[in-house]
């Protein structure tokens, strides 16, 4: 048979018991002790009274008009942020384009090389994919010459 718990419980233990936050194993002996011990039982009563008092403090009812205004304000901010993000995206794209343009102006030769390489690469893929070589004889040779010039 299990030995009965005889010690008094601390206020913290009693609080956890009242809140049902204590260990499942200790619940029955604590409950039994609180029923029998006047001092510990009084602490439990006081906690229960406090919880009842706290329940009386209800949340204030906010008028529907105030909620509508609050909701509208939040949604406005959301829309503003979304627009700002879109503008930021466009601005970033324009900024990149400007940088590329400036580079092309200050480095015309390498730029022509890059553009030609990109075109050659794209054309080669296009020729292979759509079998353009059959329709336009000599395209592959032209590309070969171009590649030799660019690649060295």
């Amino acid at each position, binding site marked *: 048979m299990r030995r009965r718990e005889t010690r008094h419980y601390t*206020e*913290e233990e009693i*609080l*956890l018991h009242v*809140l049902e*936050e204590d260990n499942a194993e200790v619940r029955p002996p604590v409950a039994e002790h609180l029923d029998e011990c006047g001092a510990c039982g009084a602490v439990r009563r*006081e*906690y229960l009274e*406090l*919880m009842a*008092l*706290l329940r*009386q*403090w*209800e*949340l*204030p*009812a*906010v*008028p529907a008009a*105030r*909620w509508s205004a*609050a*909701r509208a*304000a*939040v*949604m406005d*901010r*959301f*829309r503003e*942020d*979304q627009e700002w*993000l879109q503008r930021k995206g466009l601005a970033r794209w324009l900024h990149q384009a400007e940088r590329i343009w400036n580079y092309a102006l200050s480095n015309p030769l390498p730029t022509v090389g890059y553009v030609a390489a990109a075109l050659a690469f794209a054309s080669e893929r296009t020729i292979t994919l759509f079998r353009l070589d059959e329709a336009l004889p000599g395209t592959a040779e032209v590309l070969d010459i171009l590649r030799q010039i660019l690649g060295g």
Partner: protein
Amino acid sequence: MTSQLPDEDLIARTLEGDEDAFSELYERYRQPVFATAYRILHDADEALDASQEIFVKLYRSLASWNAAKSKFSTWLYRLACNHAIDLWRGRKRGGEIQLGEEEEGGLRSEYHISRPAASPLRQLEARETIAQVRHCTDILPELQRKVFALRFFQQLKLEEIAEMENCSLGTVKTSLFRATRTVRRCLRRRRSMP
């Protein structure tokens, strides 16, 4: 219809800029967010303003929410709680203590529900009780205030609070106990006053 969607889907859509999805998230959580702010700030107007700011913060930081780490509601309560605590800290620093203002009438009094069944005497007693409880919870320090509000008013479990606050369960237990003891003693003192 967005109202049928789980939180995760609404969040994904909000991140893509879907206004309806964000609007549904707002509807779903406006009340608990307001409640969290009110339980810390003890002022309906301030709590309503705070909940607006919390929702703005919410969508701005939504991308940082990690479903594997915490439930969305827990993450949102933490955001709400921290924002309310920041406001409360600022108010305290500024020395603006507004005890009992809600009972004085004016705009704030319109928020209170007057129970039709309760007699005027009962209503008066209830108001007096609430004023006492408010006064006693107003003196709690930061962490105790948070833990007290989340456990007693938001009904969160101590483990959830520990997860939210990123601290140990022991710390939360101790904070709750200290807060409850302070409120209990304060109420006892006030009630024994003539």
